[in-house]
């Protein structure tokens, strides 16, 4: 099995560099928010995390559909990998949102529609990983996991529109909204930059995680072949 290629090292290096520039931009260069003050800087982390988690859920959904259609374990490897990374980003989203909520709303947590649905989606994907970890037969685990992952997309859509459909403490979307972003350009650009940086980091994690799954599949194949030969 080949060690980490130069392209993969470069990919990881670019991700670290972009994240470092994005953090510096959000923490040092951008002025504080007129109403929230400095604590709004947490948004340069929170919004990119939730955007990346959304992408991870979409990738998991698409790869799961493809797996159920083609029954090709390569698609399942992408679904499983993306779901695992999605859990990390959803965890960061919940944690940073809670930390921002304390000085802004006065509470670490409230059973607001957006927060509750995010927690449910997080729990669903943790459940997905547990299902995959405990499945005795890989094909069955992949099949059940794919069904659960397909249910994750409507949950994500519900999460996105929760702030529009219900009266919530969480503010409405600032970026993906009819009429365009409501954020001032001086804050919008670092936000977009941080989203791109987080997506590059996600793509790096995804490629590495899929590589791990590929090695595991090959190991299992070799074991199976040797088992057959006795």
């Amino acid at each position: 099995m080949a060690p980490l290629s130069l392209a993969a090292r470069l990919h990881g290096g670019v991700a670290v560099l972009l994240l470092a520039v994005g953090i510096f931009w959000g923490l040092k260069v951008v002025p504080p928010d007129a109403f929230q003050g400095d604590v709004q800087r947490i948004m340069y982390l929170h919004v990119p995390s939730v955007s990346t988690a959304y992408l991870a859920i979409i990738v998991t959904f698409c790869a799961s559909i493809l797996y159920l259609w083609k029954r090709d374990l390569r698609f399942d490897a992408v679904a499983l990998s993306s779901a695992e990374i999605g859990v990390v980003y959803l965890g960061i989203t919940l944690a940073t949102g809670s930390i921002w909520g304390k000085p802004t709303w006065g509470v670490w947590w409230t059973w607001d529609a957006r927060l509750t649905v995010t927690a449910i989606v997080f729990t669903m994907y943790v459940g997905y990983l547990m299902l995959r970890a405990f499945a005795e037969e890989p094909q069955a685990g992949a099949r059940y996991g794919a069904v659960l992952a397909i249910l994750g997309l409507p949950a994500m859509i519900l999460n996105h529109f929760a702030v529009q459909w219900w009266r919530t403490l969480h503010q409405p979307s600032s970026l993906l909204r009819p009429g365009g972003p409501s954020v001032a350009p001086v804050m919008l650009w670092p936000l977009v930059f941080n989203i791109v940086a987080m997506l590059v980091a996600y793509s790096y994690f995804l490629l590495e995680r899929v590589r791990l799954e590929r090695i595991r599949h090959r190991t299992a194949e070799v074991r199976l072949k040797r088992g057959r030969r006795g």
Partner: protein
Amino acid sequence: MGSWGFIGLAYGVASVALIGYLLFLKGRLRGAREEFAALEREGGRRTR
């Protein structure tokens, strides 16, 4: 805790999560590669 305390906490938690996941992933990759290499070596000995 002031604003910068909350900011530090948020960025600290995210850094720990991302770096922790990276190290966890690298560890599993190393383990899987070693396991596969050992299996190949073992197969090579058997065929000789």
